[in-house]
């Protein structure tokens, strides 16, 4: 049970005790909340007294009469507003004029209860103000957490972007000082490594752009009927140079009539990611079985490799951004650590799922299911 502190500001003791009696045993639950709200009342007879209480401790809800002996309710509201309190204010007034209503709303009052009010009216007003307060706080917290996640993402990103720069800078300094010889041939390995790191960095930037477009929802999607087998063949063609280099053989098998409504580019990214992983994390002379089957309710895409596999421990981190499984077997494989995260986000856009089965040193099978 969460107790909300209600500050009642009214110069009439009868109103204060009346409100106290109505709310004393009142609780509210919302379907989206685990806990119910109950109320604890604090009373103030003047605006000055109210401000004093607010300054001393936390209150959640302020029930504020406008006509007070000293400073007026509107002025209290103005002060409360200046303090940027994490509280909601409700005006109670018998002199409800349009003028005050506008003024109070401008100063951030949540709503009004006309005096005199029935217990039912007060309870209804309290219910809506509690919901408002809860949602306001929830939003604030979620924004804050969102920022936190963003910050973590950026700090990891800057690490991933700086490491290749540091590596290349290091090699250039060695060359500048001619540390290992006078001939350019003495530095070929370093030049090769520098080029590999530049390539990796470019890949990261491209992946990052894909991810940003996806997350902002600003990616222009062009949904049309496409032939998945055709895109699959294109993806195999794209990966071919790398596969030949590693002597990995790609076997492809597809059912007839694989027409699916999707964005061509997105399906390409999904296939390219699956295939490039299957090649990169394969063994020399390994194999890839890539097949697409049409079931009654879904299209099932399977990419099976004979590669290094993924340990159970690493499996859970697989789809996280910037996760690259670091073992001595993956050391020389370049990657941004974003590929699988992007692929999964895309598959989810189609209401699909990604399933991974893997045995270390035997191979990994990725199964993507896209519902029809």
């Amino acid at each position, binding site marked *: 049970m969460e107790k909300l502190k209600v500050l009642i500001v009214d110069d009439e003791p009868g109103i204060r005790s009346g409100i106290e009696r109505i709310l004393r045993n009142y609780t509210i639950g919302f379907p989206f909340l685990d806990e119910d709200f109950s109320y604890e009342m604090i009373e103030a007879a003047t605006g000055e007294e109210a401000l004093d209480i607010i300054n001393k401790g936390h209150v959640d809800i302020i029930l504020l009469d406008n006509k007070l002996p000293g400073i007026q309710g509107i002025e209290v509201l103005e002060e409360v507003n200046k303090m940027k309190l994490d509280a909601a204010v409700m005006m109670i007034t018998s002199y409800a004029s349009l003028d005050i209503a506008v003024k109070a709303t401008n100063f951030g009052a949540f709503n009004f209860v006309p005096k005199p009010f029935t217990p039912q009216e007060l309870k209804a007003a309290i219910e809506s103000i509690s919901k408002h307060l809860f949602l306001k706080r929830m939003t604030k917290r979620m924004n804050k957490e969102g920022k936190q996640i963003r910050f973590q993402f950026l*700090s990891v990103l800057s690490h991933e972007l700086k*490491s290749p720069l*540091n*590596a290349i*800078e*290091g090699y250039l300094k060695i060359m500048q000082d001619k540390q290992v010889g006078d001939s350019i041939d003495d530095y070929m390995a370093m030049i090769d*490594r520098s080029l590999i790191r530049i390539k990796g960095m470019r890949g990261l930037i491209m992946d990052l752009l894909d991810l940003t477009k996806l997350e902002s929802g600003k990616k222009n999607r062009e949904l049309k009927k496409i032939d998945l087998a055709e895109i699959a063949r294109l993806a195999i063609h794209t990966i071919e140079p790398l596969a030949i280099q590693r002597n990995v053989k790609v076997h492809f098998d597809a059912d007839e009539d694989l027409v699916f409504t999707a964005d061509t580019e997105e399906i390409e990214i999904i296939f390219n990611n699956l295939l490039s992983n299957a090649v990169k994390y394969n063994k020399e002379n390994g194999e890839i079985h890539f097949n697409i089957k049409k079931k009654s309710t879904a299209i099932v895409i399977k990419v099976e490799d004979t590669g290094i596999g993924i340990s159970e421990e690493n499996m859970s981190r697989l789809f996280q951004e910037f996760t690259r499984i670091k*073992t001595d077997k993956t*050391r*020389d494989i370049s990657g941004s650590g974003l590929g699988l995260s992007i692929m999964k986000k895309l598959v989810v856009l189609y209401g699909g799922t990604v399933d991974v089965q893997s045995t270390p040193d035997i191979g990994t099978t990725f199964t993507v299911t896209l519902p029809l």
Partner: protein
Amino acid sequence: MSDIKKLVLIVDDDHDYLEQMKLQVEHFGFETITASSRSEGEKMLSTTRPDLAIFDLMMETQDSGFVLAYKAKKMYPDMPVIIATAATAETGITFKVETEEDKNWIKADLYLEKGIRGDQLHREINKLLKI
């Protein structure tokens, strides 16, 4: 200097940084052994006692270097340990191992920013090895 070359263990998960550090340290006249992860580094320490160790901070996890330093010092309390990282440039978090309190939780003798000049690194290593 004695006839036998001092042995330096370098652990870093960035292949290129590892190569560069190795080249640099060998250039100073030391022998090197390398590992590219905390676990590999631990394995190496269980069979070999280097004269000095240089660990990267962020490897398998963000604090692998600290963990490795802790374990290394437990095995060989007198072996100087350097933690080298680019963390400050990236996160703005600074570490120092100057006060007793720092030394209590960071089991390293020196904390170095990556990209330090060769002559500086050489001087620091010599200082730690009391050469």
